[in-house]
Each structure stands twice: as structure tokens, then as C-alpha cells.
């Protein structure tokens, strides 16, 4: 597959994504500067983590108006795969490609630690090769508290579009395992057509055993399978 990784001013996880896609799952990949407009060569677009435009106004609010985002929206509407990690998830919500919003962590603090994610639906392009029911990977954010209105939450649940929820090492969904106050312990979701996905934790930082967990690679393997 041909992957494009969008680089905004303030992105800082693009090289980790590049490394994993090119050297771990061995796909074609190149960076896309946020001013580019031609995405025809790609099969999948990654919006990486970071602090695009300094998180000014709201996280992802300004990045959403980058020239490339107009094309990412069209790319998604044509059915192309779009993956938003951390700040990328925030941008996808601001752009309306995913429902809801990521607000300030309930504890106010920036949280950077390893978390466990329960795979809630393993029949999606983003999870089909998740052989473990619980994935361990790091997260690092100040605004990861997922919020959505009740009607949409019900829709997400009924359509099985909640892909990962914060849990304990044993896969139990508890309040203590929720690092940021996210509604329903939601860590990642997908859109109605199943081609746009966003998650707050960083699978790209957990793709080799050297990095204390290689569980994240299961998500990338699902995407390229």
C-alpha cells in the first residue's frame, strides 16, 4: 500500500509513523506537506500526533483548514483509508470526519503513560489482525477526553464503531483504567462507512519489543492486510 503522512507545522510523531510503515510493516510511504493538494497516489493517509499550530484556539481547529485537509475530506469521501493518531484524531473530529470532540483531560494534567486498550470490534480494516484482545501502548496528551452527545454515542455503540476502550491489563473496563475521563472509556472510533479511524494512544510507539510493547503493530498490520 502507498501511505501518505501529513505534516502540519507542529506535528511531531510523523517520523515514528514513517519508520513503522516503511521498516516494520514494509509499505511505501512519503510525507505530505500540509500545503500539498494532490493525494491521488495514496491508498491511505495518516494524520500523525503532535501539536499542529500550537493547539491554538482548540486542538486541531486550525489544522483542519490547511489546504491538504480539503483534499483529505474528499479522499475520505471517495472511500480512502484515513488514520488519525492523537492530534490527528482531534483534527478528524474538528474536520467533521469523525463525530464528537476531544476536550481537556478530566484531571487537567497532561498524561503520558502506558495504557491498555480493549479491542471492541475486530472486524474492521483497523483491527482485523488484532490477535490480542488487550493491546498495550503509550499515550501522551492533554486533551484526550472524548465527548459526544448521547444520541451519537448510542449510534457508535449500536454500529460497533467504538474500536478500542481503555481497560485494565485483564481487559476490564473500569473508571480507574480511564486516563482522561473519556466518555464510555473511548480510546478510538471509526466513521459510519468504516474507512476513517481516530485514536488517542500511539500504536506507532509500540511496534517493536525493544519499545516494551509491540502490540501497536497489530493495528498497522490490520490496515495493510
Amino acid at each position: 500500500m502507498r501511505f501518505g503522512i501529513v505534516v502540519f507545522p507542529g506535528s511531531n510523531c510523523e517520523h515514528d509513523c514513517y519508520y513503522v510503515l516503511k521498516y516494520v510493516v514494509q509499505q511505501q510511504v512519503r510525507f505530505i506537506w500540509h500545503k500539498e493538494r494532490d493525494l491521488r497516489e495514496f491508498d491511505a493517509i495518516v494524520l500523525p500526533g503532535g501539536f499542529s499550530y500550537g493547539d491554538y484556539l482548540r486542538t486541531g481547529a486550525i489544522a483542519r483548514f490547511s489546504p491538504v485537509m480539503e483534499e483529505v475530506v474528499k479522499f475520505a469521501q471517495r472511500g480512502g483509508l484515513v488514520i488519525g493518531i492523537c492530534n490527528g484524531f482531534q483534527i478528524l473530529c474538528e474536520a467533521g470526519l469523525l463525530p464528537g470532540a476531544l476536550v481537556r483531560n478530566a484531571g487537567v494534567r497532561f498524561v503520558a503513560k502506558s495504557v491498555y486498550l480493549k479491542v471492541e470490534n475486530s472486524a474492521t480494516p483497523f483491527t482485523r489482525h488484532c490477535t490480542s484482545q488487550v493491546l498495550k501502548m503509550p499515550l501522551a496528551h492533554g486533551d484526550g477526553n472524548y465527548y459526544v452527545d448521547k444520541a451519537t454515542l448510542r449510534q457508535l455503540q449500536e454500529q460497533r464503531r467504538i474500536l478500542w476502550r481503555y481497560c485494565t491489563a485483564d481487559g476490564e473496563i473500569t473508571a480507574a483504567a480511564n486516563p482522561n475521563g473519556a466518555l464510555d472509556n473511548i480510546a478510538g472510533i471509526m466513521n459510519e462507512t468504516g474507512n476513517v479511524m481516530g485514536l488517542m494512544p500511539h500504536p506507532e510507539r509500540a511496534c517493536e519489543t525493544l519499545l516494551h510493547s509491540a502490540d501497536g503493530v497489530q493495528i498497522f498490520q490490520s490496515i495493510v492486510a
Partner: protein
Amino acid sequence: MKAKIHITLKNGILDPQGQTIQHGLEMLGFTGIRTVRAGKLIEIVFDGISREQAQQATENACKKLLANPVIENYEFVITE
């Protein structure tokens, strides 16, 4: 022409910043506080357009960028 835009979190959305400020105030000995909510104030200064145009432009700016309707409310006043 100046627009003063006030953006607040919708009711029911947890406002940890407001809560932390409230906690700080209480630590300082302020009593009788029911709630503290934190928001944003944005000022836009317009040049060479009418009050109606400023009103319209500000409304559009709020809808398109300044506030996120999923989580925020906005209100604004236009002054000379």
C-alpha cells in the same frame, strides 16, 4: 467596529479548568462559590465595514472556526 466574542463550554460538559480555578480560589479562602467555569474571550477589530456586516462576519466566524458546536456555546457584542 469591534466584536467581543465570549466562548463557553456547554452546560453538562466537564470543565476541569473551571474546577481547578475554583479549588484554587477556595484554597485562598474565598467562600460561597457555587461554580467556576472557564471560557475564552476573542476580540476582532474590523475596518471599513458596517455594523451589520461586522455582525454577520462574526456570526460566520463563530460557526466556522471560533467555537466548536459539539462542545461550546458562543455569544458576542459589537461595539463602535
